[in-house]
């Protein structure tokens, strides 16, 4: 690799080239954010930007950057600046560029030139093929800059020359009237800008690295980092949006002080004692009622709590037990393999299918009359949780090193004792983390509840599921009954779905149903994310404590 050492020496005087390329990457970033701002109307496409019409300004920027990128390629090709390009830009880049150019060609061919679907396809294929050849055939410095720069210049010219002006719009003729679509400049232009910014930024980053291995490295890292940042940004934006929208309705008329809250009566063994809460939080403590100022989600919170309790009580013992048998007792062979495949498959089975099962199998089997019920919802969610508990518990138990078991066996301890005092405690962190994350997931699950449990769109506080108070003993089978368990009730995600069904406006004593919906969404999100936060924190804690090596 003598060339490598040589080029490092020569690289000394490439600083101007690198500086300009770096500047272009920065400009591309600015362009990217301008495009993003235009999609959400922070920058108006019909307004002005830096004294010019927005589209003219954006077009100018695009043309300048496109030309700059092409210039980098040419300068490198002519050897004005020393770079070490490969023979070709590669098939991945060629495929992506040919796809982009195919779309451009097809749209121009079928609509601008009016050649129809077949003609558009032909023009698209032609332009795509040219794009592919222009990327794949020449040396890398030309192949990765020319198609990219040309795209930006094309979009830029379209905006500059007013082919697509601020008031431009286009409705494809092939769409029927009842399903018509109109593309406006205000919608399309920002996306074209974002796309060109990405392409040009990538090409400029490659030029900055001097093409070759280092250039590719930089170009790829730019996109990968951007992707990671975008994912985190979307997450933060989603959560922040719900918090901002839901904060006001959730915290409406919260008061703190002795004796302001609702009273809870605790009755045990004939004694009854009344506790008055020191805080009054209407959104969390009220139900829906015409007589309260603030409509709350108390019954839904109670419903979700019972659902989680029921599902965990069903799934955790069953799943952990099955995992113990599969890992410790059963011979590792076809049977364990089949069970493993089946549990994995069930974990990815759509929740609505579980709902169908619950509706067909569970709902008709609870007396006195078949109806959606809390119990059916609990069992359905328990079944959904079951595969995850089996999978994570098995993983955790397999991860326990065999030395632990051998050491225990060498002490003359029986198998079950070994499992109980060595394997299960060592696997506990994994099991607990898996269960917490799984619970977070089922707590927000809506689809199965529609089919098995949900009833009542806006439920009063008095109609919440009072499970503990309603156990009844009787002398005839089944001896223990609990009407609350066999009745439909509500839960947080179900409540939110009801808000959507109701639409917007005033109903059932709820003054602003959309605000109520945002409040419910915030409470649900808080509950679920709390489970996730606890789960992830538990995992981090145990991971730092426990290493098997």
């Amino acid at each position, binding site marked *: 690799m003598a060339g490598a050492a040589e080029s490092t020496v020569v690289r000394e005087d490439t600083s101007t080239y690198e500086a300009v390329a770096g500047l272009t990457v920065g400009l591309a970033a600015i362009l990217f954010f301008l495009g993003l701002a235009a999609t959400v109307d922070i920058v108006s496409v019909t307004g002005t930007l830096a004294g010019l019409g927005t589209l003219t300004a954006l077009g100018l920027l695009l043309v300048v950057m496109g030309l700059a990128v092409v210039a980098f390629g040419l300068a490198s090709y002519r050897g004005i600046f020393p770079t070490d390009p490969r023979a070709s830009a590669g098939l991945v880049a060629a495929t992506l560029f040919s796809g982009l150019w195919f779309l451009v060609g097809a749209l121009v061919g079928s609509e601008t030139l009016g050649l129809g679907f077949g003609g558009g396809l032909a023009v698209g294929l032609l332009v795509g093929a040219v794009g592919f050849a222009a990327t794949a055939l020449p040396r890398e410095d030309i192949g990765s800059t020319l198609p990219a720069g040309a795209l930006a210049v094309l979009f830029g010219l379209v905006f500059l020359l007013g082919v697509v002006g601020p008031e431009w719009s286009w409705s494809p003729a092939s*769409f029927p009237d009842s399903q018509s679509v109109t593309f406006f400049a205000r919608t399309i232009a920002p996306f074209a800008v974002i796309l060109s910014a990405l392409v040009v930024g990538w090409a400029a980053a490659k030029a900055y690295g001097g093409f070759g291995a280092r250039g590719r490295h930089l170009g790829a890292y730019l996109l990968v980092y951007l*992707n990671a940042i975008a994912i985190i940004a979307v997450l933060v934006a989603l959560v922040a949006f719900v918090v901002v929208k839901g904060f006001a309705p959730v915290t409406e008329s919260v008061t703190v002080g002795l004796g302001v809250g609702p009273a809870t009566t605790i009755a045990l063994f004939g004694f009854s004692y009344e506790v008055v809460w020191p805080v009054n939080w209407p959104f969390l403590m009220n139900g829906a009622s015409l007589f309260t100022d603030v409509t709350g989600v108390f019954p839904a919170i109670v419903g979700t709590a019972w659902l989680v309790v029921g599902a965990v009580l069903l799934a955790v013992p069953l799943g952990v*037990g099955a995992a113990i048998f599969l890992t410790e007792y059963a011979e590792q062979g076809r049977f364990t393999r089949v069970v493993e495949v089946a549990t994995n498959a069930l974990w990815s089975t759509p929740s609505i299918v579980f*709902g169908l099962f619950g509706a067909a199998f569970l709902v008709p089997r609870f007396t006195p009359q078949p109806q959606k019920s809390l119990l059916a919802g609990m069992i359905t969610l328990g079944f959904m949780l079951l595969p995850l508990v089996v999978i994570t518990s098995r993983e955790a138990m397999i991860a326990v090193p065999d030395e632990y078991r051998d050491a225990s066996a060498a002490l003359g301890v029986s198998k079950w004792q070994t499992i109980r005092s060595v394997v299960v405690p060592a696997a506990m962190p994994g099991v607990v983390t898996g269960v917490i994350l799984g619970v977070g997931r089922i707590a927000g699950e809506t689809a199965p509840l529609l089919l098995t449990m949900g009833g009542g769109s806006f439920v009063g506080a008095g109609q919440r599921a009072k499970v503990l108070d309603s156990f009844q003993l009787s002398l005839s089978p089944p001896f223990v009954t609990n009407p609350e368990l066999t009745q439909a009730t509500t839960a947080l995600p179900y409540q939110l779905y009801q808000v959507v069904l109701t639409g917007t406006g005033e109903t059932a004593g709820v003054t602003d149903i959309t605000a109520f919906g945002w409040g419910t969404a915030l409470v649900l999100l808080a509950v679920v994310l709390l489970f996730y936060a606890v789960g992830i924190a538990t995992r981090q804690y145990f991971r730092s404590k426990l290493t098997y090596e």
Partner: protein
Amino acid sequence: MATTNERDPDGWQARLASRFARMGAVVQDTENDAVAAGVVGAVSLAGAFAGFLVTSPYTSVCIVGFLLSVGYGWVRHQELAAKGVTMAMTVSTVVILSLITVFIFYEAWPILQDRSGQVLGVTVPGLELFTTTAWTPAEGTPRYSMLPMIQGTVLVTIIATAVAGPLGVAAALFISEIAPAPVREVVKPGVEILAGIPSIVYGFIGFTVLSPWASDQFDLVGQGTYLFVGIVVGLMALPTVVSVAEDAINSVPESMKSGSLALGTTDWQAMTTITLPTAFSGVSAAVLLGVGRAIGETMAATVMLRNTPRVAEPLYNVFYGFETLTSLIAANYGSSSGLQKDALFVAGCILFVSVLTLSIGSQLIEERMDHDLGRAE
């Protein structure tokens, strides 16, 4: 039967006999009260299951019987009882899982039989559900076509995969190979939390913000587009792709990457020439699982779509969203009965079978990757 036995002396009868003999020996070695408790426990568990199936009030009696026998066994023979109970738990897990399959198909059968059609003289159950395009349950001659919903599911899944596939693989690469440790500690839990946001919350945001915005931007008739449902569903499938793909990339032996780096390649070269090709099957399994998630996503679709089954025209018109298989079930189950309800179960069967195929396929691919890596080491 006799001829098979002559040819194969070690046939199923012999194997069954030896199994019984072994079982007999085990029973002989075990104390009588333990065997009795085990039998009582097993019988009452089976009784409880049967009782539940026929909705008998005596189910609870059987459950109590099971608990009593387990309690007795636990006190007297903990070792055996533990093995027995964990085995019973495994069996019930398997039974529950098979019940799900059986019941969905059982409920779908009436309409499949009713709407059967002839192909080359062979009766194919449910054929008529796929030869028309109308879903009109309220008309005199009701039609239940699955085609509009299949179109919706296919469009949504394609868009979601286009979002979740490339972005998910890039994010997995970032987390496992590129990101410095402190950044990874933020991004990885971040992606997991993205999976935690309930689908109804996504749906609510879509319903109140995205759908009106899309209708305004594209001047649509009414609200609901496959395009934005697909993007939202892709966002929801993203974490699945990331976590599975990350596992696959992590499982590539460090020695292979170090070997490449020692030859003077850049990190990115090592990734594209060594890590990604080696992890290719695992990464494709991740994308398949992501597709499965996208197919099965329900609430975001139900809330954001129009819930009036129709075929979008032209077939690639993603700007109008009518119904997917999942949203059909969620939106119509409460108000349907008879054949219409059975048709919903048909939709469930289609979902179940396609997701099952994807899941098993991705597991086979993953297994192959483990196998290959084992050989490479």
